[in-house]
C-alpha cells in the first residue's frame, strides 16, 4: 500500500510539522498524482470553542493527508483534539478555519456529499437500545437510501459479517460491549463507504473483542475502504495502521509509518534499544516514563 508519509520520511525530511511536510511535498514531481488519491486531506484545519473560561483552540491548524486505501491511525492523549478532528471531518462539527476534503468532497461546501461517502462509528457505540440489531441495521440502510428489499439483504449480509446473526432479534440494550461495537461497525458500513471513521473503536473492550474488531478493520480495509482510526492503544495502531499521526494540544507533532517513526527515534537515541510506538508517543508528546514502586507512571517532561 502506498504511503505518502513513509515516502516523505524515506526522503529524510522532517516530519515534526505537518504543514511543512505538505509544503515540501508541493515540490515533489508526483505530488499531483498523490493528491488525487488522497481519501482525506485538510489544510490548516482548526477548531475554536467558546467555553466558559474563554476561547479554547481544540485543533490548531493541522494538515492530515491520508492516501486512499490505507489505515490511518490518529493518536494523542486525552483532550489532544482527536475526536474534534474526527467530528469536523465527519460533518458533525463546523470548521472554524482551514478546509478539508473527504473522499474528494469539500466538507464545508457539501456536507451531505461527504455523509454519503463515509461511515462513522464514534467513541460511544451510537446505537438505539430499544431496537433489535436487525431493526437498527435495516433502519440505517433505509436512511442511506436503500430500498426495503435491498435493506433486508444488506442487513443479513452485515449481520453475517459481524457474526451477530444469533443475536439479531434481541434488543440492543442486552448486547455486550463487544457486540455493540460490532453492530456499530456494521451500521457504519451499510452503504459501503469509501472512508470509515472509527473513533476509539476498542475502548473498554476485552482482549478477545478487541482482536475481533481488529480483524474486522483489516477485512474492511482489504475491500478498499480507507480507515481513519483514532485510538489510545498504541499497540492497536502498530498492528493496524499503515501511517499514524500523533496530535498533542491541537497540533500534529509526529507523523509517518509506525516503523519509520520507531526507526527515526532509535537512530536519534542511538542507544541500540529498539523503541516501541509507546516510546515514540511519549517522545512526541513530551511525556516520559517514571517507574515508581514497580508501577509505570506517565509524567509530563
Amino acid at each position: 500500500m502506498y504511503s505518502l508519509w513513509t515516502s516523505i520520511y524515506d526522503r529524510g525530511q522532517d516530519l515534526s510539522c505537518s504543514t511543512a511536510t505538505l509544503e515540501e511535498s508541493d515540490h515533489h514531481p508526483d505530488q499531483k498524482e498523490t493528491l488525487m488519491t488522497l481519501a482525506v486531506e485538510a489544510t490548516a484545519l482548526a477548531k475554536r470553542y467558546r467555553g466558559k473560561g474563554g476561547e479554547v483552540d481544540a485543533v490548531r491548524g493541522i494538515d492530515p493527508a491520508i492516501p486512499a486505501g490505507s489505515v490511518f491511525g490518529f493518536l494523542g492523549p486525552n483532550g489532544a483534539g482527536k475526536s474534534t478532528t474526527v467530528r469536523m471531518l465527519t460533518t458533525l462539527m463546523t470548521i472554524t478555519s482551514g478546509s478539508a476534503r473527504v473522499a474528494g468532497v469539500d466538507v464545508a461546501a457539501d456536507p451531505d456529499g461527504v455523509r454519503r461517502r463515509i461511515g462513522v462509528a464514534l467513541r460511544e457505540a451510537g446505537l438505539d437500545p430499544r431496537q433489535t440489531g436487525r431493526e437498527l441495521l435495516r433502519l440505517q440502510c433505509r436512511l442511506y437510501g436503500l430500498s426495503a428489499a435491498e435493506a433486508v439483504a444488506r442487513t443479513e449480509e452485515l449481520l453475517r459479517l459481524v457474526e451477530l446473526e444469533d443475536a439479531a432479534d434481541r434488543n440492543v440494550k442486552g448486547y455486550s460491549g463487544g457486540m455493540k461495537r460490532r453492530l456499530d461497525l456494521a451500521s457504519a458500513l451499510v452503504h459501503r463507504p469509501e472512508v470509515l471513521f472509527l473513533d476509539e473503536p476498542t475502548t473498554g473492550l476485552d482482549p478477545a473483542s478487541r482482536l475481533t474488531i481488529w480483524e474486522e478493520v483489516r477485512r474492511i480495509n482489504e475491500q478498499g475502504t480507507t480507515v481513519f482510526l483514532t485510538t489510545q492503544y498504541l499497540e492497536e495502531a502498530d498492528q493496524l495502521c499503515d501511517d499514524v499521526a500523533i496530535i498533542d494540544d491541537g497540533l500534529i507533532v509526529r507523523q509517518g509509518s509506525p516503523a519509520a517513526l520507531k526507526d527515526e527515534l532509535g537512530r536519534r537515541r542511538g542507544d541500540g534499544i529498539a523503541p516501541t510506538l509507546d516510546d515514540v508517543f511519549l517522545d512526541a508528546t513530551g511525556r516520559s516514563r517514571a517507574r515508581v514502586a514497580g508501577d509505570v507512571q506517565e509524567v509530563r517532561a
Partner: protein
Amino acid sequence: MSDTTVLGGRAVRESLRTPDALIPTIFIPLFFPVVNTGRVSEIFRSDTTAFLQGRGYAAFQLPTSLLPAASFGSSALFLVEEIEGGYFDKLRAAPISRVSIVFGRLWSEGVKSLVLTALMVAVALPFGVRIAGGVTGFAVLLVLIALWAVVFSGFMQLVALKSRSAAATQAGSMVFFPLLFITPNFVPRDQLSPLMEIASSFNPVTYLMEAAGSLVLDPSFQWAVLGKGFAVVAVAMAVMVALTVRAINDYE
C-alpha cells in the same frame, strides 16, 4: 418513504416498547379531573349550571385530562438519551435532512396523541361523558389535541437539544402545569375572579381549553372559539418549527 416517516416509525416502536413511560402520561391527566369532578360535581349540577349546557361536570373536565396528556413531551427524554448515548450523532452523520431527526419524533408524538386521546375519551364514556359535536366533533378534538401534542413536544425537544440534559428536559415539561392552572378549567372564564380572568386571557392554553371544551359541550360548532384554539396551535407550531430548524442546524 421519507426520512421523517422512517424515523417516526422507529419512535412509535420505541413508545410501544416502553409502556412504563406511558403510565404517567395517562395516570396524572386522569387524576386531576377525577378529583375535581368528585369535589364540585354536586355544586355544578347539570340541571342547574348553565355553562354545562345540560351535561355533567365530568364532560366539562374532559379537556383538563386531554391537554395535560398531550403535554408530557416524553419523546424529548428519549432524544436526550440518544444525544447522551451517541445515536443522535449517528443519525446526524447520515445523509438525511437533520430536521427529519426531530420531525420524525414529532410525527410519532402526533400519532401517539391521537391514540391516547381516543383512549381517554373511551375511558370517560362510562362516566356519562359524550362528545356533543358527534363524530365530527370527536375527529376535530383528536386533531386539535394531537397538533398541540406535536407543538408541546417540539418545545420539549428544543429544551433537549439546547440543554442536552435529562433533568433540564424533565423540568421543562413541568412548565405546562402552571399554564393549566391559569386556564378556566374549573369554571368558564367569565366566572373567574377579575384578576384570574385577565391572567387566563393572556394564557394561550386557555384558548385550547375553550376550543376543546366547546367540542365536548356544544353540539353546534362555535367557529370563533375553535378558530382561536387552532390559531394558538398554528402560531405556536410556526414558532416551534422555526426554532427547531435553527437549533438542529446549529447543533454541534
